[in-house]
């Protein structure tokens, strides 16, 4: 089940968010060896993990199994502050209805099938889409490794490159804009065999339920 955490409700999710930062450290530093993200406290947090960040958490029976992060492009974000040159061909879109999508992960034990990540990755992606469509967000931007393109194309997404690919931490990566709508959500659900909503209807009650 997907929980959406914003500044409005994050006081209910402090322990879940901490676990999620620890899992991010496991995935990005221990597993993928992104040395620049290494932190002594074992929590992978950067300058964009602030009050404007929205977190998409996949929680299964009180266990965090995956997650993702959305940053409004009207605020400083990864592409605007660290990799602006990757959007040098089309320019970096910055608008109230455009959010940057970063840090999508699924814990190792939940990755299998359907282009790796299986149902859990599908739930995280559907969670991101549902949250965006619920809140009038029509465009996502992201810095993606090229090996993700076949999955997104297969899910029926439209990916507009913002510049030429570059080698980042040993992987060819490209900045893209992704216009999203109801059709994107429908084809993504169909691809993963997901029926119905990924985001839980009553977040607070659900967390209370998992804690009990």
């Amino acid at each position, binding site marked *: 089940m997907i929980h959406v955490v914003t500044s409005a409700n994050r006081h209910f999710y402090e322990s879940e968010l901490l676990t999620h930062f620890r899992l991010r450290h496991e995935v990005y530093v221990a597993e993928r060896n992104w040395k620049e993200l290494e932190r002594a406290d074992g929590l992978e947090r950067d300058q964009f993990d602030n009050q404007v960040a929205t977190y998409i958490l996949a929680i299964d029976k009180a266990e965090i199994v995956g997650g993702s992060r959305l940053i409004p492009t009207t605020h400083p974000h990864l592409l605007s502050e660290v990799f602006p040159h990757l959007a040098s061909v089309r320019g970096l879109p910055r608008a109230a209805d455009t959010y940057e999508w970063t840090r999508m992960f699924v814990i190792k034990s939940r990755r299998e099938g359907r*282009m*790796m990540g299986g149902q859990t990755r599908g739930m995280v992606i559907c969670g991101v889409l549902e949250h965006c469509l619920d809140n009038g967000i029509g465009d996502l931007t992201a810095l993606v490794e*090229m*090996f993700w393109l*076949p999955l997104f*194309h*297969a899910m029926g997404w439209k990916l507009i*490159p913002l510049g*030429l690919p570059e080698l980042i931490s040993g992987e060819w990566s490209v900045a893209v804009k992704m216009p999203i709508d109801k059709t994107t959500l429908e084809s993504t659900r169909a691809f993963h065999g997901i029926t119905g909503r990924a985001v839980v209807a009553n977040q607070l009650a659900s967390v209370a339920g998992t804690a009990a």
Partner: protein
Amino acid sequence: MVASSVRRRAFARAAEVVNVAREFGLDHGFLVPIVASIGFQACVTMAGERPNCEPRAKRALHLIGMYAHARCTALIGCESDGQRRRILSERERDVLAWSAEGKSSWEIATILGLSERTVNWHVEQAKKKLDAVTRTQAVIKALRSGEI
């Protein structure tokens, strides 16, 4: 054994492609390996007499290759996670692949450890499924549809 025979076949076909390309004046080229989260999927090659292989051009071609592959898989109707819509059985593909290499039924029977009669039966089944009149036509149809 199976993997090595598949690899041998792949190398033989790759060499054939390069030779044919050369006859058409495609001397130099650029190959984009299509790698997805689940691993290697396909190759997109672009070639010509004097291709522009500047780093910037190559990066653009990398991107173009990935989009071209996505579009092709969508058009063919096979999913890019490698699950092609196949109509032939494993054995039928084997006998047609060896036929494509110029092997006779007797040779294929020896290679696959089957009787010649069984090999011919698999060929007949493949011909029926591919709506082909001759063995050669079946091989061509199987190659074209990506069965072998």
